């Protein structure tokens, strides 16, 4: 089963994403802030990490940098953020993000992108 870790500080958003992904048959780990995401990634070694950029305690950029230090697994990273400025997107890709979605987003698109990332990782 594909394991997805979601880092998002909005409680409702987090549970909405969790609900949808579980419905689609993924195993989901939720983290309400950057610090817990950084702590949980090496423990669970998810296949995909979906992260916001503006998170309490540690930003999404820090999460991406931490993931890139993990050698055991090729974890795919999808950034899901309201920040759509060219520079921010560029920075996220430079750090190692595999995909970038801006808010507002719809679940169908998120689902397609996750499937694509899953295939890339396989």
């Amino acid at each position, binding site marked *: 089963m594909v394991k997805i870790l979601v880092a998002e500080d*909005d*409680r*409702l*958003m987090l*549970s*909405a994403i969790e*609900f*949808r992904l579980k*419905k*689609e048959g993924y195993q989901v780990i939720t983290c309400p802030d950057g610090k817990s995401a950084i702590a949980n990634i090496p423990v669970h070694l998810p296949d995909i990490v979906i992260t916001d950029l503006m998170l309490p305690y540690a930003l999404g950029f820090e999460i991406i940098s931490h993931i890139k230090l993990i050698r055991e697994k090729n974890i795919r990273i999808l950034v899901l953020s*309201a920040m*759509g400025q060219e520079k921010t997107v560029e920075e996220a890709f430079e750090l190692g993000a595999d995909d970038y979605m801006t*808010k*507002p*987003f*719809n*679940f*169908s*698109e998120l689902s397609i992108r996750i499937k694509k990332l899953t295939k890339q990782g396989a």
Partner: protein
Amino acid sequence: MDNALKKIITPEVLYALSYFFLGLFLFFLAITFINLFVQKWRYFTGLAVKEKINTLLQKALFTMQEDGTTLYPVYNKQELTLGTNAEKQIAIDELIRIRKNFSGESAENIINLYLALNLKEYSKRKFNSGFWHIKARGIYELYMMEQQDAAREIYKHTNNNNEFVRNEAQTATIHFLGFEGLRFLDTMSTPISNWQQIKLLEQLSALEPGSMGNLANWLNSGNDTVVVFALKLADIYQQFNVYNEVVACLNHKNEQVRWQAIVTLAKIADDTTAGILLSQFFKERFTNKLNIVNHLEPVATDNNLDFLLNVLNDDNHLLKLGAANIISKCCTDGMDIIRQKALLEPNPYEPIYRHIKSLHKA
């Protein structure tokens, strides 16, 4: 002296003053307690409403059919009762906050919840308010919740005398109609602030570029800020068809318009642009002279070297630097020309040469 004081400060006066200050103290104490109580009540009411809205939102976002498609959730009447206006406002704020994150079916369900809670009526009441801040808020809520039927009424306020109301109305109009909504520029008599221009351009950047049929008219508008905004549109969306109108703006009486026209012209340049900008140089004051020099890069060639060498000898160091930069980038052996100049006159051309060299390396 003592006797005089004793006559004024009698025990009765002291008693009266004591009672007065005690009363004053008790009054402020009571006010403080009432204020704290109201704040506490508001906080807990807010929490309760947020909790209620979150439960409804969960229903809106989590209702799904087995095949994965979203289902329109059914709410019961009890759930949908909101009492005071303060509660309604909290509910709207929460719905808008979540709405900003979603598009597609989830967004539709949030909007349906807004309608089911009868909050549209509340937003409309605010839109019809005589107070500008309430009106502006009402417009914001209506467009954030995609209430297209309000677009026509909102459009009428795109030229409102109050800056905040018209800013919201303009944003709403573009939100509803896209590029088509820019038609409010046709009749605009009030100014568009720089900040609003940035906001509108940012909003447009997220949309598919559409028709700007009236751009030539906007460039001839009597409203200088409309002209500046139209010039920015011509620049960003590369509107070569209004080249002549942009050139005409170089003769505008407003320096800001001419400034923007120079910037735009450099972006939609053709073979004649360099000549036009160079002749404009001599009509302008310092700010626009520098602006011209700084925007010559896309159009300057070896043919303009004489002009650029003249500017290089200007008294002003910023003009010297601008000209040196253009010579180095646009003229054959430009860098050598600047280096020779620096050897002949180390002060001030040596630091200019070094600066240009560092720019080239970067």
